[in-house]
């Protein structure tokens, strides 16, 4: 039915622009894209408006109430107030901002460690020839074929025997070097001219100095893309914090907001306000790094 609608629309456009099929086509293109953008964005708009609506009118309107109805009774910060007020737990009162800090800390720490280890590995595989390189790369490619879930139970036992239960070590250490990332870095570092590296070597630069001062600044776009991917992955990680962390004040946003569905059963606005707060940091990072991100993703797909 929708297709018929668009076909009809196209006919009308052709009738309006009898000479110019190009213009009619372009109009239709923008209409279709506009519809897609509307469908994609409406949940976000709905989320923002729900977070600010009073619980009495939450279900009354699809988005915000009409302007004539605007008042502090319909639009206010009650949801945020309830959310930020804190809740009692075994370890005393825990505030929502603590979870935000936990999530920020974990995602940033994981990203920094990962960037360092992964880019070093990628550099070794891109600019050196050594015995065993092929074996390592084949091993890496093979290891990517196994689903991460296979390792969940054995790693859980290891974390337990290391005494890392309820500790951030459990979330930071096991994934501190990404195989996928090493391939990405290798791919962009191969393009760095060898002459540059040779020249630095003749000038007496150390091998680490060459990696850190010459090669890393040249692969800035890939670094941006990798940081964003890693930050998002850790920020949105649910299963790790869910199985390893126990103390309420150590939890991260995905785990806590999932709990809140059960806690605030009749106050959707509260956990929607929390969800809104939880998607702001990755959004900021994405807008800052989106150019690098798209470039990094595309090069990976086309050449890989």
């Amino acid at each position, binding site marked *: 039915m929708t297709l018929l609608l668009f076909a009809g629309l196209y006919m009308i456009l052709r009738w309006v622009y009898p000479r110019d099929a190009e213009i009619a086509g372009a109009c239709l293109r923008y209409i279709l894209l506009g519809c897609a953008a509307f469908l994609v964005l409406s949940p976000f708009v709905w989320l923002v408006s729900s977070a600010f609506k009073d619980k009495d009118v939450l279900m009354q309107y699809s988005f915000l109430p009409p302007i004539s109805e605007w008042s502090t009774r319909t639009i206010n910060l009650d949801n945020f107030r309830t959310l930020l007020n804190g809740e009692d737990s075994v370890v005393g009162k825990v505030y929502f901002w603590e979870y935000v800090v936990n999530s920020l800390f974990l995602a940033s720490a994981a990203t920094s460690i990962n960037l360092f280890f992964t880019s070093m590995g990628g550099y070794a595989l891109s600019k050196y020839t050594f015995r065993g390189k092929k074996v390592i790369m084949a091993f890496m490619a093979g290891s990517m074929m196994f689903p991460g879930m296979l*390792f969940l139970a054995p790693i859980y036992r290891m974390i337990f025997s290391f005494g890392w239960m309820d500790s951030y070590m459990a979330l930071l250490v096991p994934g501190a*070097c990404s195989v996928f990332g090493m391939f990405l870095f290798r791919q962009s570092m191969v393009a760095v001219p060898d002459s540059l590296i040779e020249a630095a070597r003749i000038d007496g630069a150390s091998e680490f100095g060459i990696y850190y001062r010459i090669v890393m600044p040249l692969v800035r776009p890939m670094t941006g893309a990798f940081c964003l991917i890693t930050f998002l992955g850790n920020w949105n990680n649910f299963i790790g914090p869910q199985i390893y962390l126990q103390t309420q004040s150590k939890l991260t946003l995905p785990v806590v907001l999932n709990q809140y569905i059960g806690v605030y059963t009749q106050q959707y606005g509260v956990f929607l306000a929390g969800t809104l707060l939880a998607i702001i940091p990755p959004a900021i990072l994405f807008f800052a790094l989106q150019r690098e991100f798209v470039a990094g993703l595309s090069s990976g797909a086309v050449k890989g």
Partner: protein
Amino acid sequence: MNKTSRKMAAAPWCFLTPYIVLTSVFFIYPFLNAIWLAFHQTNGPRSAVFVGLSNFRFVLGDPDFYKAVKNTTIFAVVSVLIQLPLSLGLALLLNTGKSRVRNLFRLILFSPHLVGQIFVGILFSVIFTPRFGLFNRGLQSLVGWGLDERWLSSPGLVMPALIIVSLWMYVGFNMIYFLAALQNVDETLVEAARVDGANRFQVFWHITLPQIKPVAIFVVVMSTIGSYQLFELPYSLLGGFGPNNAGLTIVGYLYTNAFESGDLGTGAAIGWLLALIIFTVSSIQIKIVGTE
């Protein structure tokens, strides 16, 4: 051997040390341990008793496992089949025209992918509210049906709801891959075909499509592998696995057995079965499209 070349020989291994240490401790050892664990019964992380094949026997005799495999397969097949033409279609729409417009729409269409599955699940658990939810209202005003449908609590509607949400999350993401591939299509070939009198559809079918085929295969295989590991989205969207386990996936089944019942051995056995399923499915896919 002089000093520089010895330094050169040692350098790559120094750079690779973090990877080698981490992969030995957190990949090779758990890999071997997963084999060992699959033949043991555990009750929590400490105890382990050898039970032979009985973990596999339990899983393969459990109707819930088959339900999970069925649900996950339906989800993977249907969502990938719908996603693919939508992503490619949007990429084609964006491929021509001004680059500023392209960047804006690419940004918009990609944005859902920033939101983690748990957050998306929370969001849509309210969007699907009967009578008041955004989806139900939108559907009612568009097609005149669906205001009172209980998407998340009637067994037959859970899977369609999951697929709809996954489309929202992944169509824009996959579009980026297609768009990148389309930008690399050889324009001279397209021009030549146009000059020879090929129409738009013929150009797309004979010139464009063969050139973006590698990326299409990449997208299909990666989406399928990703779909088979679905867990967080239904878990938060349905607050568990839904009515009559209609939203139970393979990883959900693994999670319940390993971490809610505390039987890590069964968890490892399910992990192996999952790996086997993913291997089989992706090698079949590569075989089908790779033969031409």
